[in-house]
């Protein structure tokens, strides 16, 4: 159960709960869970419901000078073999309400919830005057901070806003500077992932005076094509446009970008992480890689504000089990564990091990290794006459006077054994195995001494080491 233990140390009510209060770029919130600027933060009604449900903060859906006109339909989903919304996208634009309405409501919400973080996402025409105006009027509401939307990949970018700014370091720096000239509250820059190297944009934001960074915004995407109408998904009267991709499927991309910025000495800014946060574990992963808090959208669009209870409860229990008193105790702990491939130890070796007692004989490890990896699992037959009736891995029952074994057909079950001599320790079998405790990766002595590729190259060049040759079976 690598990593996903059950944390129930708080069942004893006398145990002190960890303090979830977080401060990010000077913005304080009762917990690290913020709603991202998106449809769930469109109105006071929604944000009040969210704060009542337990969200620590919210970034108001991006406001601008003139209300935009949206299209219908707007969202698309990637379902995965029967589960809905593994990935999600939208072609919705920024707020379609007037600036006045938004500002009034922001002020009301802030009065009603003074202790919650209320940040306002902004996107206006790329002129100094426009930005100065919107910043001033927004800060008059009493909000806790600003988030500049340099990330939206669709629609607004065609009008020179959103990712059109965030894809060019110079623009990013320029607009950030305009805002910082007058802003009284902390300014976060929301970054687009649709760039070759996000660090350059982050450094530009830093140079412009940003107080923190939010990432990632959504990824350019086409969700699919309807095979009968040939229309894209989603479509508007038969036409589509690339939209912003998000949801659980994008988490690994977001984690990588958060880590890149957390580990970049030239950035050094507080990070608000987002992209696919659905469960408490996701949030902790972002924070371990350096995000001071997380923002959530798709999971709320799928299940509603109530999911925050699960995020809070999971985080509290995990922190208690690790004896962390506040979130800053663990933020960034894993960021330094990543780096260049060249610094990985070539002499480290793991191999797979199958627990025969919990194997259910599905054969998924075998065929994955055989066709997709390194042909290191042996499949042999166990004749049913030799199966003991109390073998936990081949349970049986009596029906109609005959004994039926699960996993057995045509008189045999398959047994799978790892050939640890040829196993390269790739993890694949353990990843495809449906049983959580069946296949584990165990350390094994390697024929290669402990050495990184970088050092290996240096030593090779100076003649201090022999070239490492592949083993005979490769």
């Amino acid at each position: 159960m690598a990593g996903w233990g059950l944390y129930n140390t708080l069942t004893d009510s006398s145990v002190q709960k960890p303090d979830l209060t977080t401060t990010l770029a000077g913005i304080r919130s009762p917990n690290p869970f913020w709603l991202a600027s998106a449809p769930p933060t469109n109105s006071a009604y929604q944000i009040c419901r969210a704060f009542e449900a337990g969200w620590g903060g919210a970034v108001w859906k991006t406001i601008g000078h003139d209300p935009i006109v949206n299209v219908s339909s707007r969202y698309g989903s990637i379902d995965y073999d029967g589960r809905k919304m593994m990935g999600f996208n939208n072609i919705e634009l920024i707020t379609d309400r007037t600036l006045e309405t938004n500002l009034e409501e922001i002020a009301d919400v802030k009065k009603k919830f003074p202790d919650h973080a209320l940040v306002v996402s902004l996107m206006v025409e790329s002129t100094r005057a426009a930005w100065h105006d919107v910043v001033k009027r927004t800060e008059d509401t009493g909000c806790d901070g600003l988030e500049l939307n340099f990330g939206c990949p669709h629609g607004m970018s065609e009008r020179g806003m959103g990712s059109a700014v965030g894809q060019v370091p110079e623009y990013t720096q320029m607009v950030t500077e305009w805002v910082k000239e007058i802003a009284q509250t902390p300014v976060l820059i929301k970054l687009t992932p649709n760039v070759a190297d996000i660090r350059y944009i982050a450094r530009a934001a830093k140079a412009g005076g940003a107080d923190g960074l939010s990432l990632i915004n959504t990824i350019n995407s086409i969700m699919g094509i309807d095979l009968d109408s040939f229309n894209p998904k989603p479509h508007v009267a038969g036409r589509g446009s690339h939209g912003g991709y998000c949801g659980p499927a994008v988490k690994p991309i977001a984690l990588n970008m958060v880590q890149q910025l957390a580990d970049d000495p030239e950035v050094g800014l507080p990070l608000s992480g987002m992209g696919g946060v659905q469960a408490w574990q996701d949030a902790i992963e972002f924070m371990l890689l350096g995000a001071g808090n997380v923002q959530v959208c798709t999971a709320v669009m799928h299940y509603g504000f109530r999911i925050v209870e699960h995020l809070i409860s999971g985080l509290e229990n995990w922190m208690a089990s690790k004896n962390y008193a506040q979130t800053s105790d663990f933020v960034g702990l894993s960021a330094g564990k990543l780096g260049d491939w060249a610094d990985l130890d070539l002499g480290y070796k793991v191999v797979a091990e199958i627990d025969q007692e919990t194997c259910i004989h599905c054969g998924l490890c075998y065929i994955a290794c055989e066709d997709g990896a390194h042909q290191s699992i042996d499949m042999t037959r166990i004749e049913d006459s030799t199966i003991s009736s109390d073998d936990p891995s081949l349970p049986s029952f009596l029906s109609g006077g005959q004994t039926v074994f699960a996993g057995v057909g045509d008189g045999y079950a398959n047994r799978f054994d790892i050939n640890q001599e040829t196993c390269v320790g790739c993890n694949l079998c353990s990843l495809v195995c449906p049983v959580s405790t069946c296949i584990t990766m165990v350390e094994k002595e390697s024929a290669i001494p402990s050495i990184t590729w970088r050092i290996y190259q240096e030593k090779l060049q100076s003649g201090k080491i022999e070239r490492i040759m592949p083993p005979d079976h490769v």
Partner: protein
Amino acid sequence: MIQKTLLTPDQLAENFADLHAAYPRDEAVTESSRCLFCFDAPCTRACPTHIDVPRFIRQILHDNMAGAAETIFSENIFGGSCARACPTEVLCEGACVDNTLLNEPVQIGRLQRYATDSTPASFTPGPVTGKRIAVVGSGPAGLSCAYTLRRLGHAVTVFEASDIAGGLNTLGIAAYKITTEFSLSEIDAIQAMDIEIRLGEYVDAVRLEELRASYDAVFLGIGLGPTANLEIPGEDLGGVTEALEFIAQTHTGPFEECEVGQNVVVIGAGNTAIDVATEAVRLGAENVLIVYRRTSHEMSAFAYEYELAKADGVKFEWLVRPIKFLGENGVLSGLRLQRLELVGEGRGAMLQVIPDSTFDIACDMAIKSLGQVALEPFLSEAADLQLEGGKVGIDASTGATGVDGLFSGGDCTNKGAEIVDAVQDGKIAAFGIDVYLGGLGSL
């Protein structure tokens, strides 16, 4: 007294509705998503016809219904019947590894029904070979053989003694599992491959010789004869009947015309006995009792059939044997039984009569359900057939009987098995015949 059911048509329709409702699409897809897509899957191996189960389930999952149906029908032309009547608990679903992981197998039978319902079978006959084969019997063995032979390009004529096609598949399975209409619709699809089924043509030993002379090969799929008699006094009383006749009435006429007693005793505890007992309940019998000489551990009814009967309110009397049907004025009034005890352990245990244990049970209907006997008169007269304990002896890999050009399969070769076993026998024999006629023996 035995009379037409007193239940209303609505009640009967409800009682005989599908045992498992057909899946709507979303339910089928969700259930399909549970399938792990095993390699060398135990479910496929456990299926006598070796339907590639993970393949058709994945085709359902990915909305390829034509593909899913083709996967099933290409191995088993009675895929729709088997989806409804197979004892999946001891076959594919019994082998499913989700029994181990989740204590609950993937509902393969119901998914197979979803797939086969979605796309009717349709196959093109193979290139004409000019060979002609006679198939005797239109049950699942005969029609599976006929269908496979047609796909191999041979011309096939089926001879059926009854005036309704399908054998036990049409007449011998509880109507809440397979309806008559469904069974006949499956046969229509087979006939559509230009297979002639001649109804009401009884083949005796003399006719069999004629067929052997005029066709290139003959397949014998004649099944079994009537239910075994008890050979005890009173067997000819009105109200004493047998399982196949009782079940057949639910297929040959409307349920309102079916006859049932108020107090019904079923003798025997096989799967057919369960079909009989549960149908008696569903036709309106007040009390239904199954009597069996051994116990629930030894009975041949499958565990889920036993549960079904109990849920229907059927009662069981174990370790008893009938010794006399009691009657008044030629009509059944009760059954006299004797108690038995098992001496010894396990399957080798012997039954012994308990002295002075005789007792009577009042009943107005007794249904013998002791398994069918072989068609001895036919078999003993027919051409040099090798009989092995009442069964037609065959080579398991070809269906050959040892008589030149005569092949066989199904219940007459195994004393009674499942539809799916008969289908496989018919397939094997068709390939055997193809090789006999100079073909490759494969599709």
